[in-house]
């Protein structure tokens, strides 16, 4: 049977000082932010904040110095991002660029292309979005229809993307598209392109979610030209590239901390005093939280050593999404003797927000069922 690797990570010795520096920066920057805005976690958007964070050197930390990064270790970056999430910093603007797009460019793009984008990303000025899902392709990603065909000096792209986070407030998309018609091998013929969203033929609409927030959108490509050097990696290799990106995408601290602000608000409002039932709930949540952090850190350690634990990452994402989705329900169920029910409190407002926002946690980045399918394959059941 497959053995899953969750060797515990020992953090590098100097992380405590980095943590202190990030905390003191956040103490100042987030002083005015309302509790419910902190609860937006990595969906909270502030281009201004992203620029300030970048000026501290905390965006694109692992990228080469020549491209504006600081060649820090992946674990130092991990410490910074978990601090940002725990504090509820509005990181959405640069999140995707920092987490995966920049790393993809560093890995696959030509030097000229890197110079064109990466330094601006590291300054927190250039934001990226991910174009994978389409109207008729969600879980079944290989069925995408958006296609690129060759023309003189480049490619012309036609089709559309849907549910693209920050579509309307990013400059660049990395899109997965078909470069050859779908044949027998479903995963062949897909390629990744860098698309400048100010290009002619691009039309973008934001979409309101059921809370009225506009964090994602739809994008239409009508004969959009991209030059040859905008093909990312090898033609036809898109599926593999996307999959190694997923290991970066699925195990980070954002996969279990999306509801953390509610727990923090709860503990703050209790101020050390509560009944036995609430004490137990707090114990249970803490045990899950601690365990998930150990799992996520273990994967961070493995990624830093150059392995790609994608099966383990799927486990963390699924367990983490269940945890952050259940947390608001546990808090709601326990309101009463100890947990105050004042509807105007920060706690109550944060709870309402997360009850409504949390269904998306097990959809974005791969649904529960798809992740469990990947794990089942790893168990040899498929």
């Amino acid at each position, binding site marked *: 049977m497959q053995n899953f690797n969750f060797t*515990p990570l020992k953090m590098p010795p100097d992380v405590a000082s980095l943590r202190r520096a990030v905390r003191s920066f956040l103490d100042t920057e987030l002083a005015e932010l309302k509790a419910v805005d902190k609860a937006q976690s990595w969906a909270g958007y502030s281009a201004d904040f992203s620029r300030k964070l970048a000026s501290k050197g905390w965006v694109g930390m692992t990228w080469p110095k020549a491209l504006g990064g600081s060649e820090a270790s992946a674990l130092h970056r991990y410490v910074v991002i978990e601090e940002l999430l725990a504090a509820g910093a509005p990181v959405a603007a640069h999140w995707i660029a920092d987490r995966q797009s920049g790393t993809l460019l560093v890995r696959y793009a030509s030097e000229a292309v890197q110079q064109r984008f990466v330094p601006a990303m590291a300054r927190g000025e250039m934001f990226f979005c991910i174009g994978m899902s389409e109207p008729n392709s969600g879980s079944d990603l290989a069925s995408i229809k958006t296609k690129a065909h060759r023309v003189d000096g480049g490619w012309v792209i036609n089709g559309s993307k849907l549910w693209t986070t920050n579509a309307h407030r990013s400059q660049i998309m990395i899109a997965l598209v078909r470069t050859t018609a779908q044949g027998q091998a479903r995963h062949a013929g897909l390629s990744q392109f860098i698309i400048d969203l100010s290009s002619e033929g691009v039309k973008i609409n934001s979409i309101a979610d059921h809370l009225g927030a506009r964090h994602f959108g739809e994008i239409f490509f009508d004969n959009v030209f991209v030059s040859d050097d905008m093909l990312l990696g090898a033609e036809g290799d898109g599926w593999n590239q996307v999959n190694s990106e997923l290991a970066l995408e699925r195990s980070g601290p954002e996969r279990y901390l999306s509801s953390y602000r509610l727990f923090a608000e709860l503990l703050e409002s209790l101020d050390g005093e509560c009944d036995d039932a609430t*004490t137990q709930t707090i*114990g249970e949540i*803490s045990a899950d939280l601690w365990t998930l952090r150990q799992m996520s850190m273990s994967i961070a350690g493995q990624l830093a050593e150059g392995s790609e634990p994608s099966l383990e990452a799927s*486990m963390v994402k699924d367990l983490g999404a269940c945890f952050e989705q259940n947390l608001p329900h546990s808090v709601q169920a326990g309101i009463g003797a100890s947990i105050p029910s004042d509807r105007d409190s920060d706690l109550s407002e944060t709870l309402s927000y997360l009850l409504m926002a949390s269904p998306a946690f097990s959809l974005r980045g791969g649904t529960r069922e798809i992740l469990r399918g990947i794990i089942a394959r790893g168990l*040899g*059941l498929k």
Partner: protein
Amino acid sequence: MTQQQQLLEETVSGLFAEMVVPMGRELDIDSDWKTLTQLGIDNIFVGEDEGGFAGSWQDARIVFYHAGRNALALPICETIVAKKLLLDANIELPKGPLTIATAIGSRLEPCADGDGYAFSGSLKAVAWGRISSAIVTACRHHDKDYLLVLSSADGVSSGGRANEAGEPRDNLDFNSAKVLAVSQFDGAEQALWGKAALMRTAQISGALDAALEMSVTHVKGREQFGRPLAKFQAIQQQLAMLAEECAAVNCAAQAAALAEDLGNSRFEIAAAKLRANRSVGSATSIAHQVHGAIGVTGEYNLHRFTQRLWAWRSEFGNDRFWAENLGRQVLAVKDGGLWAHITALSDNHAQQ
């Protein structure tokens, strides 16, 4: 894993697999115990000059895990923990299988003849109590904590139903019994309970993996509706969830063992045992469900693991015990709240 740990893992996994008591065979404690001790498995924490392994909790975890994974019906884990406590308390190690237990209403007093101490108290549900030669327990006396060793033979047996897996859990009453050794030891009871909880956590992790492995093997082989059960998505999704529980508990046990090696692990052990306990209900339910009727028969081996899982969930702290313990720890955190606390735990480890 270090090379030494790999070697240890190979040794114990092979050894324990051979020792699995086949159905109907009586446990041969003498010969099986001899095999274990000849290899020094009970001496994980004992120094190298004394013929031990000079090991860590991370090493001991490997033994606990494989004891769970093979449903080993011998008090090897208890003996290892007992010896570690005695080593920490500078008490000479008794021979034979040892066990650990906490006492209710206990009392320590100087012996009438002025030589040593006498202990009175009830030890309930002592794991392998009567099979063991000596019991390590804790007691408070004149506002000080003591760790002490009792001879099992001095205990008056007052029943004690075996646990769900048929492992002995004996009630033993001591009435002014002379203690074999005693040493002052701050926080003796918490130390004993915490280390024992870590041990059970790692055993639970092993038994969960065994239940997963049996389930995977079974659904690949068993056919219904013309294909293996493994090909049904409902089955695949259930086993993925089981695998996630296995992974979470395995990770928690390893991280808690590391924390125990590095010092104060009150938080980590509480979290790990609670996480392990919380996995037991859904994990055993899934493992049995995918097996169908064969899984609940006496002749099929699944119950050897699920029964232990049900038993170990309540031993050395059930969910409620550890949830309240951990909850109180979290509520007592002052500076910077929970997040500052749990990150400080891992950052402090980093500096060691």
